[in-house]
């Protein structure tokens, strides 16, 4: 799969929306400076791109077990690029939230834990 598609899929995963061409181009430039994606790391990225439902799970599992993995690095790189764009910075800057937003936060936290647990089960099958 092309890196432009990868940027688009990862952007959709991080922000839940499509990302612009400039951010995609910056992602390609940043990835070109990264070490080559080979071996198991490459297999994990490839699996995520083919099965988008698995990105959150494997990302969560690798946040615990493999922070330097290619998938984690690439997601953080794209998050940084999006954060440094006026189009998406509001998704990263603090905003005022109502008291009831705490329930959303609780749900998100539980989802994160559950997806990491599922990812830990899935990870050993990817080689």
């Amino acid at each position: 799969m092309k890196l432009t598609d990868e940027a688009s899929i990862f952007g959709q995963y991080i922000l839940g929306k499509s990302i612009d061409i400039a951010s995609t181009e910056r992602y390609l430039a940043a990835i070109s400076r990264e070490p080559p994606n080979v071996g198991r790391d490459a297999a994990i990225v490839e699996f995520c791109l083919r099965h988008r439902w698995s990105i959150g799970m494997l990302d969560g599992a690798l946040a615990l077990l493999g922070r330097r993995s290619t998938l984690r690095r690439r997601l953080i790189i794209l998050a940084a690029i999006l954060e440094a764009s006026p189009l998406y910075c509001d998704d990263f800057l603090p905003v005022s939230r109502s008291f009831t937003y705490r329930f959303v936060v609780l749900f998100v936290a539980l989802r994160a834990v559950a997806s990491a647990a599922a990812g830990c089960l899935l990870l050993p099958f990817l080689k």
Partner: protein
Amino acid sequence: MTSDFVVVGSGATGSVAAQTLVESGASVVMLDAGRHDTTYSSLIPTGNFVELRGTDSGQHRYLLGDNFESLASATVATGSQLTPPRRHVIDAVDRFLPIRSSDFTPLQSLALGGLGSAWGLGCCVYSREEMNAAGLPWREMEAAYQVIASRIGISGADDDVRPFTTADLRDIQPPLPIDKSAEYVLERYKKRRARLHARGFYMGRPALALLSQPKDGRSPSALGGMEFYSDEGRSAWRPWIAVEQLRSNSRFSYISNVFVTHFTETDDGVSVYCFDMQTLQQRILRCRCLILAAGVLATSRIVLRGFGKPSVRLPLLCNPYTYIPCIVPARLGKSMPAQDMSLAQLALFHDGGQNGLDIGMGFIYSYRALMLFRLLRETPLNTRDARILLQYLMSSLLIVGVHHPDGYSTDKYVTLEPDPESPTKDRLFISYRLNDGEEARVASRIREYVRALRVVGALAIKIVKPGHGASIHYAGTLPFSSKEERYTLATSGRLHGTKNIYVADGSGFKYLPAKGLTLSLMANSHIVARNALSSVVPR
């Protein structure tokens, strides 16, 4: 070429020494590597951090770097807080200042302004007990503190931490406003002051070399929160400001792109050996008096080479450093004001023994003008959900950086060893290990800090040890001594075994208080420069 004085280094100590000498009528040549930013400073618009984020389409260049420098560090490490416009501070260091160490990661600099270009601007005076332990002459130091404070401009408050920050210094400008989380914590502290004092904790506004009022053509802080990125309005004092002013004086010469390796001394003066950093061609400059202000680690290299015994072990001091990310639950889900500065909001000192010695220093920062992805990288959750959670937590997040004092022990030293790859053919070997007693004191102090922070409404979520060297406070390689022994300094700053070579950085400090040392380094440098002046009779 022969001059009265050669000053090596343009950092906080070099610039102060040069200014003191020039103001006294001496001619000074400053030798400096002089690396500086040529890429980013012109890209950063005037304005505040939050507004620029929503409007500036070029922000990715100075936030991430043209080569994505901000993304390079995979883990918490010394210098990881350097934003792309500050990365020149460590430019060329790996090549010219190589180090081998398994337990110490220092930050060194070849920049114009040295490490002072990335200084957090915190100002503290040492207590008399601390000065005695460090080997500093307290009467002269107290006068010198005032000279430096008047030169650089300091803002601060008259509150519980004043004895630790500006003490009796005059002409202190009013403090800058602090943000809502810091205000909340400070109010909690005031209500629980007696309880915290009984535990030895004192909280207040830090004194900062950041102007709140105009001074000498410099502007007060615009509260834009861009202090990690630019020196807008020169409201923050940086050594390059002093060097730039000196360059308009005919008695001052600034030579950049040179790397000083060693010295020799004869009856009629000092020869300073250096090389051009591009061609590696050697140069020799003659002077009547040499003042080394290259920073503790670089000065130790020059002295070890100068005395011709590179394998001698020199002792080393460095403040152990821990930081504690905290959540202030009362501030969850709040927005952050557009106008605020991004430097230390509060200071929390721990004087457990109530004896003016063995004092811990905590500086409290909001996570305001650094990017969220740095936290995403450290969070053990998937990126999508961590973004949502951290966005919610960010306004309630405080980072407490705790410095611990340091004294000599056997496993802390530096020495030079051969390195054929290096332009100087050597590299610095550094060993730095705390003994069991020191480890226990650091751990105990951190527990005390965590408890005190809880009392003021800040809950610690993690204790991070970024590794030795991360405090960027180094000292003690050439301790002050009353005996004329090599590898020590006279109290005047003169290098024992020489007549006209002085050391103006922190190499002489025999004890390193936890308090931010830059103000004390500058005060000591002023004293050393005056001592050097009096020993070299003007022609």
